[in-house]
């Protein structure tokens, strides 16, 4: 957003808020646009050969909380948290190249889709096994505590991941050790095709938090500002040395489980209901309502992002596939 109509008229605090909200919209839309291209264009054009999992409708969760993290906090995204990468400064080029298996991708073609990370940016790549990151994140948080660091760890997971043993073991260890760990659940009400009532017999994921003696809250996962505020509370708690904190973001996956899934198992009315809560549109409305941005500003923002994305796709397509002779490199330090 290059210019904002009335920014000079705002009080300092409002200016800060306006700036934050604009950044929110920026990342919300960036994630939306990148994923739109991935799922609905590049995948359908056969340019992405593996799975494509997107966070459509859930972008407020990673964007809102990601903007609450400090630059040296560790992030453990799950497979619908693309926005986190952008917040951390990963370029869309690298993401498109990643999905297309090119050397320009974060994993240089070794892995696909959201299985990407960058220790330099303190973003840790997931493995496929749901919830496997949680014990790992607990370990990072434990280390930061031992190191007397002010940094903390943000860990993301879906409702479905909460059924896994690793989820339990990781959170339990983290809570016993009082580690600085912010646990962020995107409860999008489905795990692949499986609805909540086949996954858990409690009403909310946070009903499990007392079992670990940790505080928790439920937040509207489609409201980026609400998520952000909750994340700040959680981060403050963790940073003060009070241990883990769990946030459950109620949301909905506005697409199939992955690009090949038509999601016929979702009752039709839910799509409409949740479309009305679209986090991008809600963020637009907030900005417009408070005159933090005009329609023109927003259109300009979007146009800029679209251009950036076009360029990023072209860049990624120009990035070569890995040289097959590199296949056996990098399994061990010695095999570089």
């Amino acid at each position, binding site marked *: 957003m290059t210019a904002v109509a009335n920014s000079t008229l705002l009080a300092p605090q409002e200016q800060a808020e306006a700036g934050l909200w604009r950044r929110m919209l920026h990342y919300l839309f960036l994630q939306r646009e990148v994923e739109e291209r991935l799922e609905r264009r590049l995948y359908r054009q056969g340019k992405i*050969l*593996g*799975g494509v999992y997107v966070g459509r409708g859930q972008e407020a969760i990673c964007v809102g909380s990601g903007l609450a993290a400090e630059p040296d906090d560790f992030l453990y995204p799950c497979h619908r948290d693309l926005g986190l990468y952008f917040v951390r400064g990963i370029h869309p080029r690298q993401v498109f190249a990643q999905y297309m*298996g*090119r050397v320009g991708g974060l*994993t240089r*073609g*070794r*892995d*696909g*889709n959201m*299985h990407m990370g960058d220790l330099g940016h303190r973003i840790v790549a997931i*493995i*496929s*096994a*749901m*919830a496997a990151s949680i014990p790992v994140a607990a370990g990072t948080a434990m280390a930061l505590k031992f190191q007397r660091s002010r940094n903390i760890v943000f860990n993301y997971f879906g409702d*479905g*991941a909460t*059924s*896994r*043993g*690793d989820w339990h073991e990781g959170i339990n260890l983290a809570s016993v050790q009082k580690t600085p760990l912010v646990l962020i659940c995107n409860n999008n009400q489905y*795990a*692949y*095709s*499986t609805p909540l009532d*086949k*996954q*858990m017999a409690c009403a909310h994921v946070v009903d499990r938090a007392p079992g670990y003696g940790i505080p928790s809250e439920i937040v509207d996962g489609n409201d980026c500002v609400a998520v952000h505020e909750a994340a700040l509370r959680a981060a403050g708690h963790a940073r003060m040395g009070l241990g883990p904190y769990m946030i459950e973001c109620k949301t909905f996956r506005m697409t199939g489980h992955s690009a090949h899934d038509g999601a016929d*198992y979702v009752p039709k009315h839910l799509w409409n209901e949740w479309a009305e809560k679209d986090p991008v549109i809600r963020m637009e409305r907030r900005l417009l309502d408070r005159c933090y941005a005009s329609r023109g500003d927003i259109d300009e923002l979007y146009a800029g992002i679209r251009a950036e994305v076009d360029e990023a796709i072209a860049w990624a397509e120009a990035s070569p*596939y*890995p*040289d*097959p*002779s*590199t*296949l*056996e490199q990098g*399994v061990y330090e010695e095999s570089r």
Partner: protein
Amino acid sequence: MQATYLEAIRQGLQEEMERDPSVFLLGEDIGVYGGAFKVTAGLLDRFGPERVVDTPISESAIVGAAIGASYAGMRPVAEIQFADFITCGFDQIVNFAAKCRYRWGAPAPLVVRAPSGGGIHGGPFHSQNPEAWFVHTPGLKVVQPATAYDAKGLLKAAIRDNDPVIFFEHKALYRKVKGEIPAGDYTVPLGKAKVFREGRDISVITYGAMVHVADEAADILAKDGISLEIVDLRTLLPIDEETILASVKKTSKAIVLHEATLTGGIGGEISARITEKAFEWLDGPVVRLAAPDTPVPYSPTLEEAFLPNAMKLVEKARALARY
């Protein structure tokens, strides 16, 4: 009737469920959705939610519950959505299911179905071939069919078997491989390999998707006058040593081929058995062809370099033929 590998498996499940009310299925997304690969599509409608159980994402509980249900007289067939996630239920398989008969005489007649293998650009976590871990676990049986006929027949045999069977389905074969399936009930016995293609010069001992790779290579090599005999193991544990040795004693040369990574793969086991028991028949070293020792890479160029294929086998076979 013609059926794909996938349809053959579905038929096998359905017929066994019809035949025996104690057979039931459990796994993630197998009911309403019909499974990630649609193997179980239609079975929920046919048999209801108590015989096609959609579970939470809990591989350990899926396997564990299968064991426990078997103690109550059921014959559970558990699906692991991708074989890569079998590691999440590993302890239940190798320590609970595998050892209970030996320890206290409590058989656990269950089947764990798991789609394994690469070639679909699934990357490191949707492409693995983890069979060797289970082959090293006494008390388990391990199966991997290469054809539609065997897929159905072996699955039915696995369900009727009174020991825990890990049943790997090569996901690249689901829709690629088709075959004639007899109308009536039949089983393919566990523990028996099959000579998939007869030949004179070199025995290729293999299984799963690699059987077709070997077949392709055999066509190419036939033009050079090199005749491959292909042994399809079908059951990986117990290993049908007899069929392997008979073939090797005939050809005097052997290549063991698998898609799993080389080191510690079951190629070593088979090579060792051949050397131990047919040393005097060998006219050359037993050669192995397998994937290199790396995770399964995602990018098409890397995955192609990773997977064994007909040309790689042709090269190995030519070199061995010259030996």
